[in-house]
């Protein structure tokens, strides 16, 4: 299968149409239906989606860039078979540059990028994967952005070049969208999101990795209407990030019933009770995992018995941890404590203070009585 995948990168449009004809009609309609459902469209849209996909002429050119990341999003993308086969995904798009998929390497690869950008200048979709390190490495020769160089250019330069000339920039994965794990404390490489590094607004298909259904649906949306889908304040498309995981979670009934897993492996866990008390961040996380699931609708963390860790939210590694507690800790200089500890200390202090003052009053009752008498009071 791996070889067939590479076959499609850089193919001429006509050849791609031929390849599309190989695909089973049933699979194809199933794919269109999945996309319609993901986008929240009704069944009458399915033929329109099919038509938009089949119209080869409007296939958008895609330049897929890798920055500081683990290639997890490319992995997710090429492993998906639902929406249908990987051929189909690659066929909706004309992927003209993709470092891990293309055969070319070295100078030939750099040339391919230059060509791809020139041929479709201002018209291609830049898909970005990975964060941009902005910091300067220590040492006499360090320059800003040196932590990431591809073909002699820093990540910052590459990102500005490619994103600046794109019709639209789509970030896949949390790193490109918000900086990801490497942007978390203490962030040694100064990693930031694509939009922060380039100043170009991006559409963020966040997640770790992102769900392929969502990136493909975004592209179909682009094919269908010629525009990117409506996004939330963080640039995430609302069709996928408009509701929290908790809002449609299959364990939600147990949440409302007050039936919680107390620790992994207990009776509640076996009965698939709600994972709220073992740190599930579903109530804080916008994503459509609970309806589309991952890997062809196979499973997703909560279905597998583990709480959500909020991987589609900004700075999730810092903000959503500890992953097995509900609230983040409070970091005061020198100490780290839970909010409840800080609070109970406060309450304890107030109660102790009151008790101490009451004792003082009892012992010094006379003093207060005296002040009562001494009251030629004016203000």
């Amino acid at each position, binding site marked *: 299968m791996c070889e067939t995948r590479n076959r499609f990168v850089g193919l001429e449009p006509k050849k791609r149409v031929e390849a599309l004809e190989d695909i089973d009609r049933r699979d194809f309609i199933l794919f269109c239906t999945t996309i319609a459902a993901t986008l929240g469209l009704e069944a009458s849209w399915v033929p329109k989606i099919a038509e938009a996909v089949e119209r080869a002429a409007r296939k958008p050119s895609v330049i897929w860039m890798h920055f500081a990341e683990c290639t997890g999003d490319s992995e997710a993308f090429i492993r998906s078979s639902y929406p249908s086969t990987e051929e189909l995904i690659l066929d909706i798009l004309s992927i003209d540059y993709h470092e891990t998929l293309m055969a070319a390497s070295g100078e030939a690869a750099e040339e391919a990028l230059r060509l791809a950008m020139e041929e479709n200048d201002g018209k291609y979709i830049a898909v970005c994967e990975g964060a941009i390190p902005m910091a300067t490495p220590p040492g006499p020769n360090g320059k800003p952005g040196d932590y990431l160089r591809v073909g002699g250019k820093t990540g910052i330069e590459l990102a500005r070049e490619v994103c600046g000339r794109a019709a639209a920039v789509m970030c896949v994965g949390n790193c490109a969208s918000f900086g990801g794990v490497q942007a978390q404390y203490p962030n040694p490489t100064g990693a930031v999101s694509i939009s922060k590094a380039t100043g170009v607004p991006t559409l963020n298909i966040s997640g770790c990795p992102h769900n392929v259904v969502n990136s493909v649906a975004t592209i179909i949306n682009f094919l269908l209407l010629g525009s990117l889908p409506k996004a939330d304040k963080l640039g995430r498309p609302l069709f996928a990030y408009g509701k929290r995981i908790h809002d449609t979670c299959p364990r939600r009934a147990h949440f409302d019933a007050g039936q*919680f897993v107390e620790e992994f492996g207990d009776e509640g866990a076996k009965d698939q009770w709600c994972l709220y008390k073992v740190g599930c961040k579903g109530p804080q996380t916008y994503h459509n995992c609970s309806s589309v699931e991952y890997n062809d609708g196979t499973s997703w963390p909560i279905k597998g018995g583990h709480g959500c860790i909020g991987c589609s939210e900004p700075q999730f590694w810092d903000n959503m941890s500890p992953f097995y507690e509900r*609230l983040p800790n409070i970091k005061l200089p020198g100490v780290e404590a839970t909010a409840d500890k800080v609070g109970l200390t406060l309450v304890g202090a107030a109660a102790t203070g009151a008790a101490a003052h009451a004792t003082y009053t009892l012992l010094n009752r006379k003093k207060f009585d005296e002040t009562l008498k001494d009251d030629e009071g004016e203000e």
Partner: protein
Amino acid sequence: MTAGTSALKGNEEVYLVVRTRSIFACAIHWIVFCSVIVLAVTGLYIGNPTFYFGKGEPYQAFAMADMRFYHFTAAAVLIASFLTRFYLAFTDSCNKDIKQFLPTPRNVINAFKLAFNYGLGGGKHLAYRYVNPLGGIGIFGMIVFITMLAGTGLLMYAQGGNPNSFWYSLCSSLTIMIGGIQNVRVIHHLSMYFLFFTVIIHIYMQIWKNIVFTESDISSIIGGYKIFPYRDIGHFADYYGIHLDDAPPSREEMDRASTPMKDAE
């Protein structure tokens, strides 16, 4: 308006009954009190559901759903009564008391004097017809913390809303400014504990004052009047034209003292 004297232990122990706030304002205090208790109990449950479990099949049990329902209902009551109280602070017939709650320089200075006076028992005892400046500072704190609780609570509540609405985008912008929903939740928790802190001191101080000094502040929040020993009214005598001398004030003077003031402080 209530006015009366009662001669206890001879002429010196004359008591003055004065109106301090309308019955409406008193009622709101206790509505706020009740809703805060409900919010604290249900909120602590929502944060860590331990003391009440849903037994049976999920469709038979609604422990968490119930608690959240009570939390949101009490929150609505709290917000509505707080807004009404805010309006009353400017328009109340007996006491337009907004200035008594704000930490103006004058209030802060007087609060320090009182803190010394109440805390250690030194200095002059100052009686106040309305909220005293030390109490006022504490009340200001409670107002701030309740506002923060309501604000962060509404931000969390808005999360489940319609993502196309104006309200939703307003709240999500604010949430992003605060640094994410987890920070909002931490602030909700911390504001709660700061509120508990101030409330404990508030309650202790009111009860303590009631016992140690003769002025009865608690009746001021239940019935809306305070009872002062006549000799304590010195520092606000000027307001009412009561002249302090050995003789108790006349009935007429008493009545005047008890009439609502046009402009509090």
